[in-house]
């Protein structure tokens, strides 16, 4: 969970500041942060990553007040987040596999674990076969998927994507967003900063609009209502499934059936 309580951040140059932001993002949400450049979108992300410390107010991530966090704890905070950059930030000397593995290696993961996990995430983003290629041999969309795989490889509870589709064509952009949506369905909170309204309209999610450092619009209520509706729908499906299962096999316990249906969903 991410919480901003009366957060302001001023910069000496005056740009990119945010002013009195109050915000709560629950686990598992899919959030768009939109707004013109200089509105403070990136500043918000930096505050969440503790790249910046607010001038006043509090930023709380997963119950921890970042304003009170010690410097040496910051790396451990970042391990709970995966970051996707607009310019991909891939190391061209390394293969796709190594780029993704790099993120695990630098936090001290074991080699055997790295092998298993990297292939799994490359599979998830559909780049299994590109593992031994170098980033420069890939298209923009593919590079961004590598970057996504790298963000995912350490199993973060939050994905932060800063203009993830800024450098790729619309069709590929939609693919990236679909993958992000998939990741979100698995329970990861996803935060996307973008200025592409078409994407925002195509993908359902909570939309926070920033202007001059202030939140001018937040579709939280509609988003929650929508989510609740979806949940009810899937709940209904589960119970319908249960009922039919009950009638077919009366001897099986209810717990096991729920487990079974959850697996089906995934």
């Amino acid at each position, binding site marked *: 969970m991410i919480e901003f309580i009366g957060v302001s951040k001023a910069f000496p140059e005056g740009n990119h500041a945010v002013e009195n932001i109050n915000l709560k993002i629950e686990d598992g949400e899919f959030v768009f942060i939109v707004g013109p450049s200089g509105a403070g979108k*990136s500043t918000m*992300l*930096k505050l969440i*990553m503790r*790249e*910046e410390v607010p001038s006043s107010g509090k930023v709380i991530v997963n119950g921890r007040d970042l304003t009170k966090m010690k*410097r*040496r704890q*910051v*790396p*451990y*905070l*970042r*391990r709970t*987040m*995966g*970051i996707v*950059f607009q310019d991909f*930030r891939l*190391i061209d000397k390394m293969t796709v596999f190594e780029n993704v593995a*790099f*993120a695990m*290696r*630098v*936090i*001290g993961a074991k080699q055997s674990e790295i092998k298993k996990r990297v292939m799994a995430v490359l599979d998830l983003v559909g780049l299994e076969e590109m593992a031994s290629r170098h980033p420069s041999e890939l298209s923009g969309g593919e590079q961004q998927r590598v970057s996504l795989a*790298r963000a995912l490889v*350490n199993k973060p509870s939050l994905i932060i994507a*800063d203009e993830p589709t800024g450098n790729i064509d619309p069709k590929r952009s939609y693919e990236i967003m679909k993958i992000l949506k998939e990741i979100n369905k698995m329970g990861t909170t996803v935060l996307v900063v973008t200025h592409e309204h078409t994407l925002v309209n195509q993908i359902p999610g909570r939309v926070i609009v920033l202007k001059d450092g202030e939140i001018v619009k937040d579709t939280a209520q509609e988003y929650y209502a929508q989510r609740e509706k979806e949940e009810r729908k899937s709940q209904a499906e589960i119970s319908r499934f249960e009922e039919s299962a009950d009638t077919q096999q009366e001897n099986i316990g209810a717990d096991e059936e729920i487990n079974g249906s959850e697996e089906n969903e995934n």
Partner: protein
Amino acid sequence: MYFLKEGLKNMTHNRMMTLASIGVLIAGMLLTGTAALFSMNVKLMIEEVGDSNVTSVYLKDDIKSEEDAMVIGEELNKLGNVSTVEFYSRDEAIKEYREALGEEVFANMQGDNNPLPHVFKITLSDISKYEETMAQVMSIDGVDSVGNRSEVAGKLTDLNETVTNLSFWIVIALGLISLFVISNTIRMSMYSRRFEISIMKSVGATNSFVRIPFIIEGMVIGFISGIIASVIMYFLYDVLVSALNNIFVLNAIPFMSVLVYIIVGFIVAGMAIGAVGGAISIRKHLKKEGKEVLNW
């Protein structure tokens, strides 16, 4: 293993700077080594010289013949505190000079043209009565002066002190220069890898994890410098010993007996300077990098 590999990779990034650091470090080590070996040998010399109570008795210039000299030798022998008397003729002396310094210079200084006096080398049985005995020696007719080797010892001590003081400051200066060059080398390799560092930081690598390859880079530079400096020192030592032999003929400390200390000393010092140099530059960089993870 990962760290070592990364550290070595860093070194090849900036070959010129790496070589420069190695060069400066070697220079520093050689100077330190030379000064240390010089000092050790001079101390050994001083001990040798100081321990022996041999005193040279120089005869007056007008005593040319060895027969005349022998008369004085007899008188020296009669003195109570003198245990041995050894004659050292002016011909012998000039011959030695000629051998040591070259035929040409002393070619026409033979026979009557020899400017050197006859010398007796006497040993005293009781060195504490030195002053008294010397007064008696001086009173013998035909004795010009007495020279004590403790004078040589005194000069050597002075020389040793000068060299030690001078080299101390030069070593300090070179140490600082090495530190500066190494930390700059590492700063450059850090600069060329700033992109990777920013990615490392964004995925949550700890500062020490980022730091270690650079410190290893510094230590490897120090290690290589130490090895090379040891080898050069081995050859340089011969030159040093022959230079010292011009001042005073001595049994120099054999290089092999100090070899281990030299190698270990050089390598440890090099690695320490390298590690400190690496730590200095990365510390600054990481503080800055903290604000620039995303480069937005």
